[in-house]
């Protein structure tokens, strides 16, 4: 007998388990309803903005003037605590690219004629580009920059400068010109809603079998751990994808949030996230003995995702420890992908790393779960 024959098909049982799972789902319309429509209700009710204190907005600077005056002004921006000037751009293209890719949320451009115009008593202009996909950032950045330039103008006027207002700031809000909070919240919410739904459904479907004793029965049949996992992941993965499409439609139709980037790319890049949360659900199911335990663990993954993923609060504002935590949470990367594609029209070049991280996390979670299942004999 060959080794392969003795070991058997590692995915043995995947199809019967998958088919059975669909029957379970169809038999329990209440669960299906809550799984699919509760998040949608939540989404519809989420019509308000949550304002938070913003500090240290990552900012890119393009200083074409390179004079004492321009350096002074930039110092004022830097000292305001609102802007964190971490990058220097060489061109208008750099400026825009940094914001599209999400590396910076604001861009300051000081034109070449800035000092000359000031010296000639003409009004000088400073350009402020703001990433409107984050509504809280937008309003704050506008207010702070207005304040800084008013202060500098007054100082110049007091110093005897001529003219009405020596310096003027022109704001350009990119991607979300109307600064609607829906545009900011809805894309992020997709990640949270999917995560809550999928992790719970997958974990419950296995833990329920453990409680009922059918998992013990399956362990004595030719069903293999991988077969069981694939059989469980397929239906709930499909449900998750269906939910994603539903929410995207709602977002487009009800909230009128346009998708700036490629829809195909968005759907493609959501697959590694689905894989990751399916894997987390499986992992929870290997640890939880009862459905109550599984629920608690699922909530345990959800709460940090709500608060630390950038969904509600700007990651850049968080204390270092929380920033670390946010970087190990799948939702953080998927929210970056969602906002990037939907609001800023970002492409593969900007988001491939996020997708890759999710793919890595998903693979790790599933391998870990498989290892646990094999070790425990699928019990």
């Amino acid at each position, binding site marked *: 007998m060959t080794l392969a024959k003795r070991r058997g098909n590692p995915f043995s049982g995947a199809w*019967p388990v998958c088919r059975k799972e669909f029957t379970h789902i169809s038999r329990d319309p209440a669960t299906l309803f809550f799984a699919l429509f509760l998040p949608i209700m939540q989404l519809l009710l989420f019509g308000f903005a949550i304002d938070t204190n913003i500090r240290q907005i990552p900012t890119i600077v393009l200083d074409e003037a390179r004079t004492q005056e321009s350096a002074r002004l930039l110092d004022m921006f830097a000292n305001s605590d609102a802007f964190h000037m971490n990058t220097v751009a060489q061109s208008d293209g750099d400026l825009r690219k940094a914001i599209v890719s999400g590396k910076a949320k604001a861009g300051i451009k000081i034109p070449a004629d800035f000092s000359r115009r000031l010296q000639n008593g003409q009004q000088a202009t400073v350009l402020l580009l703001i990433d409107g996909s984050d509504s809280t950032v937008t309003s704050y950045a506008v207010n702070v920059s207005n304040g800084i330039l008013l202060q500098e103008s007054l100082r110049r006027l007091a110093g005897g400068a001529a003219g009405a207002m020596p310096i003027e700031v022109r704001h350009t809000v990119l991607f979300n010109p109307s600064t609607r909070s829906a545009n900011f919240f809805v894309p992020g919410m997709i990640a949270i809603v999917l995560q809550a739904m999928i992790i719970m459904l997958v974990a419950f479907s296995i833990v329920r079998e453990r409680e009922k004793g059918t998992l013990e029965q399956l362990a004595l049949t030719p069903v293999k751990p991988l077969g069981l996992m694939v059989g469980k992941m397929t239906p709930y993965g499909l449900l998750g994808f269906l939910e994603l499409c539903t929410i995207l439609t709602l977002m487009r139709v009800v909230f009128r949030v346009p998708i700036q980037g490629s829809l195909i790319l968005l759907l493609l890049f959501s697959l590694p996230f689905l894989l990751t949360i399916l894997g987390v659900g499986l992992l929870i199911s290997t640890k939880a003995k009862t459905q109550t335990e599984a629920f608690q663990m699922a909530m345990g993954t959800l709460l940090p995702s709500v608060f630390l993923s950038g969904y509600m609060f700007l990651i850049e504002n968080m204390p270092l420890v929380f920033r670390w935590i946010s970087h190990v949470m799948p939702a953080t990367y998927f929210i970056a992908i969602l906002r990037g594609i939907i609001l800023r029209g970002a492409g593969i070049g900007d988001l491939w790393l996020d997708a890759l991280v999710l793919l890595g996390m998903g693979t790790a979670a599933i391998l870990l779960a498989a290892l646990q299942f094999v070790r425990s004999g699928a019990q």
Partner: protein
Amino acid sequence: MPPVITAEHLTIRFGNFTAVDNVSFTVDRGEVFGFLGPNGSGKTTIIKALCGLLKPSSGTGSILGMDIRKESTAIKQHVGYMSQKFGLYEDLTVVENLDFYGGVYGLDGATLDRRKKEVVELTSLQPYLDRRSGRLSGGWKQRLALACAIIHSPEVVFLDEPTAGIDPVARRALWDLLFRLSGEGVTFFVTTHYMDEAERCGRVGYIYLSKLIALGTVDELKQLPAANPAGTERMELECPNASAALVVVRNLSYVREATIFGRAIHLLVDQSAGHDRLLRDLSPCGCGEASIRSVRPSLEDVFVTLTRQEAAATR
């Protein structure tokens, strides 16, 4: 003909705990082998090991000649398993449960249809095919569980306390099914706590504190020297007030065991005492009318005596 199930010095340890300690036995084709023992004595662990689910710490075993340490995948295809929990999906119908387990064992198309028809006929489940299994009574659930366990025509079936909590009529119906299948050459390994079920088995093994302490036919076990210690005699005492008499006899120095069976008391007494002395000692409590006769031990007597001896020896 080689035995269908063998266990050779099977030992399974979980950390420091030895769940199965040097257990050896064989079961022949078509046999209904009863396996008894208190809860936690290692019965389920042995079943799991024989199905290849747990690797033995030492010793070995085989099912149909396949090594339980190496060929669990092949073994699972030839073995059926039914537990006390039945392993049914309660929100699926009877036929959906059969479809699922059939599919899990790789049956499809005409083969699956034929097997479904056969097991439904055998278990008389026909009227309930479209009923959710959760809505079946205990007895019918049990039949469905058996039908699922044998859908792939296994040569060996392990039944782990299959009749716990089932009414006597349903229990008998299940045993009738088992004997019908064993007549067709299916080998059964059944764990149970019920003595009447044990008495039906061709051979019986008794496991206590992870060790197999008795093995043989029911008659062989009843004649075991250990179950009938030298210098003792088993008697049945019939008297008007058995429960009052029980209190008295339990305090007599020469009475080793005493327990009530219906209106009588079963006793294990030192032979030297004799019937007359017992009657004399009972007379003060108004049991003078008692009648005493010598009896053979029941299977329960055998297990209780063996268990006490083993417990005393390990203490």
